[in-house]
């Protein structure tokens, strides 16, 4: 397929990348390209300049920060996450994204910065309480997961900025559950839970951004018995306003949200 004409640059440093992104209104960062190249084919996005991040080796890799927290470079691929055991849930979820070829190229930074509402990592990182380090011409800033996802295809990473790293706080009792279109396909509804000092639960595919199930978290409290979790999740759907489409009606998504939240919490609880 012939893409629209586009300029291309391959910076050798984060600083150079930011300069290119900040100086060109129509610039887009190109990470693994497993979303961007396809939306360019469909002309759903038509950047004037692609800033290819492949040479920014500092952005790729998983680092144990020693205090139980883990720092992940934005250019870390799904395959890198699958091969790493710093935080089990990251590799498990990465292994369920698309297929081998996509996992070899697709990156966690691309996944969250594209913020497609059906993506796996946005709800997971909200549940994990991740922090996002964004660099731009004005320097570096840190944004919480609750503030990172702003809308469909929209995040706190503004024009001229770049996501550098994602930091996951200490923990390990995490769970993820999804109903997908075929095995490892696109999510119809997803739910993520993390039980590290109180439950954090996020639902995906029911709104433009992951929805924190705060009322459910409060109801669960510290009573992780299956009975309590199921009772607490029974009314979750009534608090959501999910879309209807060819894959599921809004009502069915409300139903799935409750079912998957229970599965995610119980999976998290089972983890050592």
């Amino acid at each position, binding site marked *: 397929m012939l893409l629209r*004409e586009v300029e291309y640059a391959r910076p050798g440093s984060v600083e150079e990348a930011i300069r290119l992104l900040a100086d060109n209104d129509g610039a887009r960062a190109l990470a693994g390209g497993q979303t961007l190249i*396809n939306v360019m084919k469909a002309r759903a996005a038509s950047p004037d300049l692609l800033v290819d991040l492949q040479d920014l080796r500092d952005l790729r890799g998983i680092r144990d920060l020693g205090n139980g927290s883990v720092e992940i470079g934005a250019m870390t691929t799904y395959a890198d996450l699958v091969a790493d055991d710093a935080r089990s849930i990251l590799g498990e979820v990465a292994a369920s994204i698309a297929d081998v070829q*996509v996992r070899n190229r697709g990156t966690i930074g691309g996944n969250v910065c594209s913020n497609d509402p059906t993506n796996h990592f946005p709800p997971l990182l909200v549940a994990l309480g991740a922090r996002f380090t964004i660099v731009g011409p004005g320097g570096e800033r840190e944004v919480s997961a609750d503030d990172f996802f702003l809308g469909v295809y929209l995040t706190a990473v503004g024009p001229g900025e770049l996501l550098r790293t994602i930091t996951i706080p200490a923990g390990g009792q995490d769970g993820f559950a999804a109903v997908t279109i075929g095995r490892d396909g696109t999510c119809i509804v997803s739910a993520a839970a993390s039980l590290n000092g109180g439950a954090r639960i996020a639902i995906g595919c029911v709104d433009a951004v992951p929805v924190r199930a705060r009322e459910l978290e409060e109801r669960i409290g510290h009573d992780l018995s299956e009975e309590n979790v199921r009772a607490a999740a029974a009314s979750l759907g009534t608090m959501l306003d999910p879309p209807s489409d060819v894959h599921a009606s809004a009502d069915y998504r409300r139903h799935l949200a409750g079912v998957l939240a229970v599965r995610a919490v119980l999976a998290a609880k089972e983890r050592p």
Partner: protein
Amino acid sequence: MTSKRISLTVNGEVVEYDVDARRLLVHFLRDDLDLTGTHVGCDTGNCGACTVLYNGVAAKSCMLLAIQADGATVETVESLAADGELTPLQQAFSANHALQCGYCTPGMLMSAKHLLDTNPHPSEDEIRKAIQGNICRCTGYVNIVEAIKSVAK
């Protein structure tokens, strides 16, 4: 529009070529290098017919720009029987009737090669997971899995 001379290694040979930034790697391979073994199936990243080994790992060449491949190493299906002799994997596809129309076969072979390069003795589950990104509409996959299994022993 950016046009750039790229230099990359394709099937063991260094090639240099001027490419436009918008050129997909699969079109570069097929139309510029005349390596037509790599197929364009869906052109949306779903079918896997365009799978090549890119810096040693399976990737869909319709979701890469040729210009990104400057400095990269690419192996296409043509690298498999470089001396005219089918590799054991290709022979196994033939012996097990692992294809009918053959359209998916180049991508299927490269995904299978990537699997066997990284995991010489995969289980059936691992084989199925490895070719998840390659769609075949003829075989029902059974014979493809059998073929890969027969060289994985």
